[in-house]
C-alpha cells in the first residue's frame, strides 16, 4: 500500500516533468500523437543564446539570493524574540508580521508603490528586493518561531548558566539545533521570491526583468517548446538552489540526534 502511494506520488511529479522535457526538445509534434516526431536542441540553443534571457536569470538569482539572506537576517532575531521573550504587544506584533500571508499582495503593492515612488525605489533592484520581503518574511518567521518554541527556553537558560550571553546562546545552541528549520525557511523564501511576478512587475516597472516577467509573455504567445524551455530552466534553478541550501545549511550530520521534549 505504502509503495503504491509512493509510486503514484512519484508518477504525479515525474510524468509532467518528462513531458515538459520532451516538449522542450520538440521540433515537430502533430495531433493526435502525444510524443514528438522530431527532437532537437534548437529551442534550448536559441533561448540560452539570448542575452536578455541570461540577464533576467542573473537578475532573478541576484534578487532571490538577496531576499533570502535579508529575510533570514530579519526573521531569525524576530522569531527568537517572539518565541523566547514575553513582552507587551507580543501578540499584536506576531499578527502584524503574519498579516501579509492573509492580505493579498495586490492590496499591499498599490500602497507600497506610492511610498516607493516618494523614496525613489521604483524600477530599482533594491526596491524589488525590499518589496519581496513582504510575502517571504512571514513564512520564515512562522517556521523559525515554531522551531524556537519547540526547542523551548530551557536550553538557552542552561547555556546562560554555563556562561553564554544571548549571542552565544543563539550561535552555539539554537542555530545548530535549527538547521533543518533554517534550511526549510531559506528554501521557501528563495522559491517564493524566485517565482514572484506581481510585486516585481509593479515595483520593477518592467525595468527589472526577472525570469517570471520574461516567462509570462512567452506563455501567452502559445509557443509550447519555448514555454517548456523557460519552465525547465525555472524548475532546474529552483532545484539546484534547494539542493545547495539543503547541502550547506542542513549539513550532513551523521550523528542524528533528537530533542528531548
Amino acid at each position, binding site marked *: 500500500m505504502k509503495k503504491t502511494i509512493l509510486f503514484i506520488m512519484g508518477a504525479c511529479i515525474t510524468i509532467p516533468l518528462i513531458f515538459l522535457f520532451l516538449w522542450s526538445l520538440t521540433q515537430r509534434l502533430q495531433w493526435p500523437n502525444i510524443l514528438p516526431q522530431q527532437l532537437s536542441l534548437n529551442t534550448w540553443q536559441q533561448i540560452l543564446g539570448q542575452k536578455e534571457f541570461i540577464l533576467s536569470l542573473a537578475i532573478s538569482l541576484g534578487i532571490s539570493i538577496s531576499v533570502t539572506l535579508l529575510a533570514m537576517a530579519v526573521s531569525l532575531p524576530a522569531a527568537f524574540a517572539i518565541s523566547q521573550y514575553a513582552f507587551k504587544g507580543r501578540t499584536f506584533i506576531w499578527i502584524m508580521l503574519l498579516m501579509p500571508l492573509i492580505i493579498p499582495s495586490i492590496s499591499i503593492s498599490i500602497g507600497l508603490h506610492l511610498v516607493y515612488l516618494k523614496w525613489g525605489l521604483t524600477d530599482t533592484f533594491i526596491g524589488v528586493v525590499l518589496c519581496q520581503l513582504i510575502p517571504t518574511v512571514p513564512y520564515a518567521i512562522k517556521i523559525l518561531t515554531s522551531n524556537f518554541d519547540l526547542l523551548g527556553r*530551557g*536550553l538557552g*537558560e*542552561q*547555556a*546562560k*548558566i*554555563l*556562561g*553564554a*550571553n544571548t549571542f*552565544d546562546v543563539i550561535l*552555539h*545552541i539554537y542555530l*545548530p*539545533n535549527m538547521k533543518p528549520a533554517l534550511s526549510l525557511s531559506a528554501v521557501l523564501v528563495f522559491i517564493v521570491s524566485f517565482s514572484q511576478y506581481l510585486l516585481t512587475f509593479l515595483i520593477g516597472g518592467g525595468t527589472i526583468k526577472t525570469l517570471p516577467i520574461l516567462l509570462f509573455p512567452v506563455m501567452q504567445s502559445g509557443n509550447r517548446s519555448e514555454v517548456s524551455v523557460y519552465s525547465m530552466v525555472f524548475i532546474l534553478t529552483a532545484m539546484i538552489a534547494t539542493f545547495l541550501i539543503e547541502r550547506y545549511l542542513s549539513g550532513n*550530520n551523521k*550523528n542524528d*540526534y*533528537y*530533542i*528531548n521534549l
Partner: protein
Amino acid sequence: MYYLAVEAIEKSYNNKKILDKISFQVNKGEFLSILGESGCGKTTLLKIIAGLIKQDSGKITLEQCDISNTLTQKRSIAMVFQDYLLFPHLNARDNVEFSLKMKGMEEKKKRSIALEYLELVQLSGMGDKYPHELSGGQKQRVAIARALVAEPKAILMDEPFSNLDTNLRSEMCEFIKRLQKQIEMTTIMVTHDRKEAMQLSDNILVLHDGTAAQCGTPAEVYKSPADLFVARFMGDLNLIEGYRRSGRFYSQIGLEFSDEGIDKNIIYAVRPESIGVSSIAAVDYIKGVIQSKFFMGEKMNYSVLVNGTPLNILALSGNSEYNIGQEVFINIPVECIMSGE
C-alpha cells in the same frame, strides 16, 4: 558570615504572590534542600538565585557580594535542571566542555579538563556518546559534570531525581551525596520528596504557600516541626485531641501527661513509628483493638482503635505480628508528642 544568603525575596505573578519574604542562609560546603509541595514556588526561588528570574524585591549575597542584579552568566552559580537539558547536538564531552569554551579556554586544555570531570562522575569512555545514546542516570551525571566543570561557587539542583526510576534514584542520591562531600560543593536542591531531602541534606528549608515555614536540620524539621503543615509534610501523623486542665493534658483516647499552660482544648500530634505496641499490658499502656493491617516490606502498618479513635501505628515487620480484632496495648512516649496546632 554566611557563604550564600537570601534575604526577604519576594516575587509575584499577575498580582499573586509566589514568594513572600523568603530568607535563608547557606554555609560553604553545605547541602540545603528546599522542600515543598508542587507549585509552592521552589523552582521560582531557585531560578531567582540563578538569575534566570528577576525578584520583585530582596537581596542575594554570595561570599558577601550582592549578586541580586548580576547577570546569570556572571553569577558563578551552576544549575542542574529537572530534565538535565543536555545540548542535543553536542556529545557528552562537548557538553561538559561548554562552559570552558565560553571562557575561551584553549582546545587541548579544555579537553583534558572535560575528561577529568567525566572521570569524576564515573563516565570515562562515554565522552563520544550523544545525549540520546545515554541512559537517564548517565545523562544526569553528564549534567552534573557540566555544572561542576565551570568551578561554580554554588550548585543548584531542580528535582534532580524526578526522572529516574526508584533503584537508580537511590543510587544517584548516594552518588551525589558522596560527590558533594568529596568536593565540598555548596549545594541547594529543590525537591518535593522528603526522603531525598532527609537523606542528602545538612539543612532543610520547608516552603509553604510561598513562605519559609521552617529551616533546620533534617532531625529538627522532622522531630520538632514549626507547625502542623511541616509536621504533616515531613511524615504521617496521628492527631490526639484533648484539653488542658490545671497543668495536665487529658485526651479521649486515655492519654494523660503533665502539661503546663493555660486551660484550653488542645491538639497534640504523634508520628506512627513513635507509638509502641504490645500484647502485654504495662503501666501507662492504653488498650486498643487492631482494626486493619498492611504489610509494607520492612514495616507493618496497623490501624488500632483506641477508645473510639483510630490510631495509625508503624511497627517493624520482624517483631511480633498482631491479628485483626486482637486486643493490644499501646504506649505513646511523652517526649515524642508534638504540638498539633
